[in-house]
């Protein structure tokens, strides 16, 4: 049986694009060029400062890595070269796929549209449950990649009538590439979205938000202990990022991957929902998604459906308007209901859009505004 990693590798190695075709699968389309291992090209990094004796301090994320000459930061993709900081992933994606936007998941952002999804190696966290660890926990030279500058990304996204989505690994570690690509996309009338863990510094995030159209953030847990123990990160900077995104006006959705026994306690879920309501508002969609055993957590069972249903009930009870379940096609909680008339305005199954009853951003039945980007 073909493993997930083998599948990804075969896609990359053969230089293929995965096109969305249906709820979960896809078809392989001819590639523009081949992926291959190579020496990564260096591109000047932004968001850092010089320290004495040729050291540098990265200011991209809260880790603030102090990096000596010839060393790299925690993410493994930014390197100090003789006192100058460079990124080794600009324009060098190792994953290029065409996905349904629902896969991100972004449920309130142009339902049924496509996302031309790219990722480079590297991540500034190390989540024990990572589904894409083979690229997120790798250095650029460890993965097959191709050179794809921003204009080329935009050209291909247009060709597939898709938005550009920075996803799979952690776009914050390739933020210069994101910003340059999203800037080019905006000029070309193509939208850009980001799927991130949200562990970034405010200044670079604000710069990226100027050219992004939607962001989905993984709110992985709601305790510092969880972030430290399971992700080698911190919760507080993520919460700060969420407020920055919400304050920017860029469309925001949240995902909480429910891992049995780790971050699915009722108290933690309730605290999280209350924080979301208080700090981000009731209109921000919150997805509770099913965990699948991966990476360092192969010994943990998948999330029971009942847990997802219960989490969703808590979110709704706490007053959030749009709470979804995910990664379980057919489980109640995939559709969008109108907060006023309670009729279903978007029917989905898995990543597939079935029906939509939203016109000009309003419920077709009662006229209530449904928050989101619908056209």
């Amino acid at each position, binding site marked *: 049986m073909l493993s997930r*990693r083998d599948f990804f590798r075969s896609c990359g190695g053969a230089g293929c694009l995965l096109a969305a075709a249906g709820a979960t699968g896809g078809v392989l389309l001819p590639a523009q060029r081949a992926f291959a291992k190579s020496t990564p090209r260096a591109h000047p990094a932004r968001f850092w400062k010089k320290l004495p*004796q*040729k*050291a540098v301090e990265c200011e991209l994320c809260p880790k603030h890595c*102090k990096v*000596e*000459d*010839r*060393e*790299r*930061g*925690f*993410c*493994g993709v930014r390197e100090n070269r003789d006192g100058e900081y460079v990124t080794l992933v600009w324009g060098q994606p190792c994953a290029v796929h065409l996905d349904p936007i629902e896969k991100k998941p972004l449920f309130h952002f142009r339902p049924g549209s496509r996302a031309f999804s790219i990722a480079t190696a590297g991540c500034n966290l*190390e989540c024990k449950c990572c589904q894409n*660890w083979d690229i997120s*926990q*790798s*250095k650029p*030279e*460890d993965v097959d990649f191709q050179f794809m500058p921003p204009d080329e990304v935009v050209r291909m996204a247009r060709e597939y009538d898709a938005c550009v989505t920075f996803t799979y690994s952690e776009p914050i570690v390739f933020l210069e590439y994101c910003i340059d690509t999203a800037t080019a996309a905006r000029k070309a009338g193509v939208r850009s979205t980001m799927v991130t863990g949200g562990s970034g510094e405010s200044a670079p995030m604000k710069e990226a938000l100027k050219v992004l159209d939607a962001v989905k953030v993984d709110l992985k847990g709601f305790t510092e202990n969880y972030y430290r123990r399971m992700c*080698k990160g911190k919760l507080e900077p993520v919460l700060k990022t969420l407020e920055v995104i919400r304050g920017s006006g860029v469309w925001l959705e949240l995902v909480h991957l429910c*891992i*049995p*026994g*780790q971050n699915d306690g009722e108290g933690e879920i309730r605290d999280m929902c209350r924080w979301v309501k208080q700090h981000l508002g009731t209109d921000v969609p919150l997805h509770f998604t099913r965990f699948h055993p991966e*990476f*360092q957590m192969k*010994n*943990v*069972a998948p999330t029971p459906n009942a847990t997802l249903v219960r989490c969703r009930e808590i979110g709704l009870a706490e007053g959030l308007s749009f709470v979804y379940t995910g990664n379980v096609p057919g489980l109640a909680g995939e559709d969008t209901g109108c907060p006023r008339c309670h009729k279903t305005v978007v029917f989905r199954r898995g990543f597939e859009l079935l029906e939509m009853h939203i016109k000009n951003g309003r419920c077709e039945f009662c006229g209530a505004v449904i928050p989101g980007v619908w056209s």
Partner: protein
Amino acid sequence: MASDEQSSDRRRFLQGLVGAALATAGCGSSCASERAGRSEISTVVTQTEAARTAVLQGKPRVVVVRAKKVLTDGYDADAGAVRAMLDAGLVALSGEKNHTSALLRYFKPTDRVGLKINGLAGRNAATHVEVVDAISDMLARAGIEGRRQIAFDRFTRDLTASRIADKSRSGGYRAVGNDDAGHEEELVQMPSSASRLSRVLTRQVDGVLNLPVLKQHMLAGMTGALKNNFGCIHNPNKMHVDNCDPYVAEVNAVPAIRDKQRLVIMDALRPVLDNGPSYQPGMAAPANALLFATDPVALDTVALGILEGLRAKRALPTLAMLGQTPTYLATAARFGLGVNDRAAIDVVEIEV
């Protein structure tokens, strides 16, 4: 339930370590010499009665060999002096009569030997090429010819910068960067992390001679024998938080790393005293020493004392004052990887 399962995994991991440690202590060839209490250690070793007693008690041995004139121009090493140091150290560590028989205590003539150098800091603070060349020659004389020796580290560029990959020399060994050889696809799971192992380590060598450099390290406190094995994994960048503790210990507990490492010879000819692990002009000072051991924890413990002593002479604060205590040494000892109690280590000092 999930956390119980994880705890169970952790228990199994630790139980495996203890079992392996006991096995090594009991019958591993790599440390048999220290445990055996041989009566003829070496004529060049001036042992105290306490040291002899220590050997008989089964203490791990660390041999420190010094040669005042080993550095020729402040950096490069004199090949003849290095050979003399290696000969003295190997003999003192093994109790054999010469370096050839000493090396054959740790490696079989049919072995393919990995020389795990440290090349990160380039020529000025890498494992001295004269040390690598000399040990390679000695291995060849012991029957392990150059074509079965591989000097390796993370990046080919580091092997080049440190002159290890210089094809014009007559060392005979090959130099391979993990970036060229690649890493295994399968992950090795550890309690706190997971890594892919260097294919040089897993596929191309049967035993490893660890050749670290003694350096202060801004994040780990000190880099030595244990930390040098970060060069055997694909993601050392993920393991520099919390003073690299428990990551250094966990990486060294990985069976492929722990079991293949037969011998450690540390290059402390010119340690980096501060702002390491990169080379900083003015921050390296001659110590003119090579350290030998089969117990990497014991070797690092002795090396830490040397580093702190050199720092004190420069009026540099202790690592503890900087919050850089290499706490991973205690963790490694707890894992059964070696001894970190200085009083429980048999330190043999030799001047050549």
